[in-house]
């Protein structure tokens, strides 16, 4: 993209809306055409300018912010409006937010695609939103200046009010909105300096809470479309087998069942982000209600062939990873001279680690509502209501699946009962649309929990082997890390794969922060029949565990306190040092824990945030682990909403601890054995440790908050297990009993 078009990006435009008031939008049309421009010009709703509005202020002073990111629980419908409200000097009680419609005005101009992930929302949108808020404020001030015939320089703003202190006059934003909407939009609105922030950094209340405590929030599963029927599906349990038999008559005999629809395995490539959607052989039952569809599917008893996956089980998969460690991989980091440094080391440590596949298990199972209308004269139309994190991807894949142009598809983003990366995928969106086209009516497709757990895109299982050489001071001078991992990016973002190395597989391992002179890191891509995808913190979810466990081994072998060891190796990383200092202090690391209590620590950077954690545990007589408390310190740069940060860190730690304690997909005959929360257990209230969360306050660029507390939680726990038992946990989940 040329500089010229860059400078024209994000230019603001605005207008008085029909009913009065001020509305502001951005146009991304200044972007030069590129291979992906279809995504940009895609304006599925063929919408006029009023739906490209990001920010509006009506005559009663209500400020509506349209949020480009998808609200999955991470708080974007609050944190992004907070950025606008700051610049606007808005009264927070007058701010409401909604998920923006899916039009070209809400795509990310740097990727030309719309999707939410990578803990990136605040980082991505802050400059844009700050500019919008600042522009609106300048327009409101200009309107007041004209009304009172005073220079703008004599005006100030506070709490949605423009004030002229010399004369004591003031006017609310609602009163001024219509006049402001007639003014031209400032080219270069001046944004605040952090010292002047009054809302950023405050724990403002979430804007989505009220509707979430009275049942009125509409999630994907709650969509109701006139005339719709319900569907539920069964996809090939081993992902590769074909439908070989079913009792269709029995299914149709179930009261309320309308249709049985076969959907052969299909495969689409989103050429924009080079992402493949592969849907296994699937059969759907359509009925008057979900319950009837579910009963119909039970009566249908679909049987699938083994597709060659019969021998796939956990033991064979693990053996495959271990064998892959012995095969030559791609070098992703090669500093110094690894062979020489290993051969000259005073002490050599060797260890092999492994982690299992993990499910996402969003609280709201996969679902989507679709209405496919065939029209041979005017062209077909497809409307979908999707709980999706990846709108552009979904639309792109739907285009290919049905041979439609973008403007024939209208996509509505609903609230989501969790995403965690699962809702990037477009499989469930395509399925719903296919069922609707075949059934010739609007369909709400809802997966059972069993289908959801057994047809995920799992966090990859992987293995990592280390050879670490220590010098006479017990410090690591040679670090060799050989990894075997299935590729996530190869399927869902192959544009990111460089020189045969999936960046997701190696993140958190290729970029360890420690000053170790000789480092060799290699990756052997090892794919299996189990589909893999992005799971909260992606590659760091395994590499954080591997690296920080190995560092604990180094500390023990070199006779260093784990904090001291890291300090010695992080002298060039002042932000890490601050996190270490605070973590050591807040966790009381230097004071011995109470009798029977043991601690472990870990620190990891991901998504531009540094997180350190200490776990304090005890082991019961029966060998069960009790996690008493977690101390967490994050440096995520400039803090926007500390309350939301706290919840995200707590949430991420619970995710990581649950995975370490008992996460892991069991595979037999190529299929997932667990079926529901009774066999794949999540953490309940009673098990959740006390959590002390501390945020380092600084003015650095903002980092992500949704994911970075996952990686250190697992090694903090397993390092504590080592402290308690002398047993090094090199494979997750931890054994249920350490007795």
């Amino acid at each position, binding site marked *: 993209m040329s500089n010229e078009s860059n400078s024209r990006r994000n230019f603001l435009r605005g207008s008085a809306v029909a009913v009065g008031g001020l509305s502001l939008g951005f146009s991304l049309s200044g972007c030069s055409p590129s291979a992906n421009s279809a995504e940009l010009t895609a304006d599925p709703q063929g919408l006029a300018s009023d739906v490209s509005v990001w920010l509006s202020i009506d005559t009663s002073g209500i400020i509506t912010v349209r949020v480009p990111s998808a609200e999955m629980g991470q708080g974007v419908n609050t944190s992004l409006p907070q950025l606008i409200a700051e610049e606007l000097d808005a009264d927070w009680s007058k701010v409401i937010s909604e998920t923006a419609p899916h039009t070209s005005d809400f795509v990310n101009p740097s990727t030309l695609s719309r999707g939410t992930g990578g803990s990136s929302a605040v980082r991505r949108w802050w400059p844009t939103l700050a500019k919008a808020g600042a522009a609106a404020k300048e327009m409101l001030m200009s309107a007041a200046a004209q009304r009172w015939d005073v220079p703008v320089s004599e005006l100030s703003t506070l709490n949605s009010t423009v004030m002229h202190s010399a004369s004591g006059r003031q006017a609310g934003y609602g009163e001024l909105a219509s006049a402001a909407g007639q003014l031209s939009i400032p080219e270069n609105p001046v944004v605040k300096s952090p010292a002047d922030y009054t809302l950023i950094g405050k724990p403002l209340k979430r804007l989505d809470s009220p509707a979430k405590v009275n049942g009125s929030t509409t999630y994907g599963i709650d969509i109701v479309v006139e005339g719709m029927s319900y569907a539920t599906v069964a996809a090939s349990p081993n992902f590769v087998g074909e439908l070989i038999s079913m009792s269709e008559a029995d299914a149709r005999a179930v009261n309320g069942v309308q249709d049985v629809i076969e959907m052969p395995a299909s495969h689409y490539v989103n050429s924009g982000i080079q992402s493949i959607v592969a849907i296994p052989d699937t059969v759907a039952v359509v009925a008057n*209600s979900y319950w009837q569809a579910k009963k119909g599917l039970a009566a249908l008893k679909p049987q699938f062939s083994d597709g060659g996956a019969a021998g796939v089980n956990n033991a064979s998969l693990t053996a495959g990873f271990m064998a892959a460690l012995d095969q030559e991989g791609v070098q992703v980091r090669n500093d110094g001279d690894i062979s020489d440094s290993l051969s000259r080391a005073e002490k050599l440590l060797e260890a092999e680690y492994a982690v299992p596949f993990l499910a996402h298990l969003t609280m709201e199972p996969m679902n989507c509502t679709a209405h496919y209308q065939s029209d041979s004269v005017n062209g077909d139309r497809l409307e979908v209501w999707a709980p999706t994190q990846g709108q552009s991807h979904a639309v792109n894949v739907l285009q290919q699946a049905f041979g439609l142009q973008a403007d024939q598809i209208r996509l509505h983003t609903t609230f989501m009962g969790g995403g965690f990366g699962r809702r990037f995928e477009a499989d469930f969106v395509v399925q719903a649309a296919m069922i609707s086209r075949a059934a010739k009516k609007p369909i709400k497709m809802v997966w059972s929990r069993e289908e959801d757990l057994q047809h995920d895109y799992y966090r990859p299982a992987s293995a990592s082997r280390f050879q670490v050489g220590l010098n006479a001071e017990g410090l690591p001078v040679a670090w060799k890390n050989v990894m075997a991992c299935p590729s996530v990016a190869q399927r869902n973002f192959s544009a990111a794969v460089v020189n045969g190395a999936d960046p997701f597989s190696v993140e958190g391992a290729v970029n360890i922060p420690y000053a170790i002179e000789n480092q060799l890191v290699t990756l052997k891509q090892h794919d299996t029949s189990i589909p893999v995808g992005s799971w909260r913190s992606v590659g760091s979810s395994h590499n954080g565990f591997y690296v920080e466990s190995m560092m604990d081994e180094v500390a023990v072998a070199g006779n260093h306190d784990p904090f001291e060891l890291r300090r010695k190796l992080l002298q060039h990383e002042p932000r890490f040092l601050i996190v270490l200092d605070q973590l050591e202090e807040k966790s009381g690391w230097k004071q011995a824990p109470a009798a029977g209590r043991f601690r472990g620590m870990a620190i990891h950077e991901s998504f531009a945030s540094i997180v350190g954690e200490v776990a304090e545990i005890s082991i019961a007589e029966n060998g069960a682990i009790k996690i008493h408390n977690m101390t967490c310190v994050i440096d995520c740069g400039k803090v926007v909403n500390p309350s939301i940060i706290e919840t995200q860190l707590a949430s991420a730690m619970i995710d990581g601890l649950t995975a370490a304690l008992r996460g892991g997909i069991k595979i037999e005959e190529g299929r997932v054995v667990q079926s529901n*929360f009774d066999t794949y257990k999540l953490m309940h209230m009673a098990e959740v440790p006390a959590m002390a969360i501390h945020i380092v306050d600084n003015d650095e660029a903002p980092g992500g908050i949704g994911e970075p507390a996952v990686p250190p939680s697992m090694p903090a726990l397993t390092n504590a297990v080592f402290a308690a038992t002398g047993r090094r946990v090199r494979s997750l989940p931890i054994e249920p009993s350490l007795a």
Partner: protein
Amino acid sequence: MNLTINNVVHEFEVDEDTPLLWVLRDTLGMTGTKFGCGVAQCGACSVLIDGQVQRSCSIPAAAVEGRDIKTIEGLSRDNSHPVQQAWIAEDVPQCGYCQSGQIIAAVALLEANPKPSDDEIDKSMTNICRCGSYSRIRKAIHRVANA
């Protein structure tokens, strides 16, 4: 079939074996009660039946005819119920999907035990929150108890 839900009598026809959850959601359009597992494991579908918390995915609607059924919609529309207020004050919901069930479970707990200890909260709050909002749920319950 007749059900009394939030003090209103609803008359409708469904298959005899339809769980209360799907009557609420699909037949009556009361979608505040959520589907999470369908096997009485997660509590997203919790409702009050004669004041007791029950998992509506695993109770046939026919079994609760004539009983007093309360759902999240019946707590209050305007969030004036003290448990809803505490949930907002503590900013409990993340994705929010489990929260109807969590709130219903908390209402039942506080009804039976107006000042629950942490242990008692642990024992009776057994619903899953996949977002891990547990500490704030606990705080919100204490807030109601101490109001």
